């Protein structure tokens, strides 16, 4: 029981000091952007802009080359690829295969 308690305490204290050190580094990096304390990627928190990417989604209607009409969501956040790639993949799914 004692050993579990001490292990937990050790982990808690350890993570607190780590977080504390990290905060100091962050503050230092903000205060001295030119690097009195060397900036590291971990120490500098990402900016709000970097966290909240301006991803946008739209509902667009794609007219497939074989005649069908397909309303579809397209988001510019990467998974859909470029708009032209997305149009082509819908067209391929809608019109193919004709093996």
């Amino acid at each position, binding site marked *: 029981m004692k050993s579990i308690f001490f292990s937990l305490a050790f982990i808690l204290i350890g993570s607190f000091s780590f977080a504390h050190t990290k905060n100091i580094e962050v503050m230092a990096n903000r205060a001295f952007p030119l690097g009195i304390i060397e900036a590291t990627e971990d120490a500098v928190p990402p900016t709000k802009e970097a966290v909240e990417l301006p991803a*946008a989604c*739209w*509902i*667009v*209607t*794609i*007219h497939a*080359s074989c005649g*069908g009409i*397909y*309303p*579809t*969501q*397209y988001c*510019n956040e*990467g*998974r*859909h*690829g*470029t*708009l*032209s*790639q997305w*149009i*082509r*993949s*819908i*067209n*391929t*799914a*809608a*019109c*193919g*295969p*004709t*093996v």
Partner: protein
Amino acid sequence: MKTIFLAYLISFSWILVAQDIKVVKYAISYDFIPVVDTLKGTLGGPFEFLLLHADGESRFHASNKQFNDSMSYVYILANPQFANPKTQEEAQEAVDHYTTEMRNWMKNEVVNYLVRKDFGAKKIQNELTFAFPPQHLEEPLNFSWNIGEKQDTIAGLFCYNAYTTYGGRKYTAWFSPDVPIPDGPYVFSGLPGLIVEISDEKGWFTFRLKSISVSPHQRFWDVNYINPQSEVISRKSYVDQSIKQKNNPRMPAGVEVSEEQLLDMKKRHKRSYYLLLESY
């Protein structure tokens, strides 16, 4: 001022071009002949595929995809105003413009595989081409071949035969030591010469050499060949989804589709045995 703008535009275009065009070491085309009726043994196609190699990486996909990709790339360079829509209206306008402009250019790429062989990292990435969100299979690139004693001349090249097993199937390959390229169609590679022909034991899937170009030349080279957000999936998931797509096809997630359209898709996929190439 105009000169500065023009110079800026040219240099910017050059950066774009530099990112998406590469000098390939070789470009080899293959005919893919898949079964379309397993009971009668009827074969379909042929469908032309392309094997491109640059900087220790090979890519294998439908020749029509290569054509469509490069045409789309030229379209984007020529129509930058549609590249980044900001509103719903602009997005629809971009879709309509692309569809209208490219309708007469686009080639059919319904039978497609998309395979990337990374010879440095010794891994194969195989995209589940119909899936959305994007997914791919990732497996080590280490084929074990048994070289046979048979010899033949295929496509004018002196060949030896070799055997391997891959993805639940046994394959017989014919390779030519006269073409010292240890590469081949689809995922296959690692023989002491180019794979000229490869076929599974049932004869359902055959790749046959069509043409070779070993003089370095520029080709369109998509920097995001495998979507960077593509999820790595297991072989079981890859195969199960492929079987499902053949028997009960679905449109990519987020696409509205009517029951009638789905029934039509189902009819057309009856002969899509090419989706069953991978097994376990």
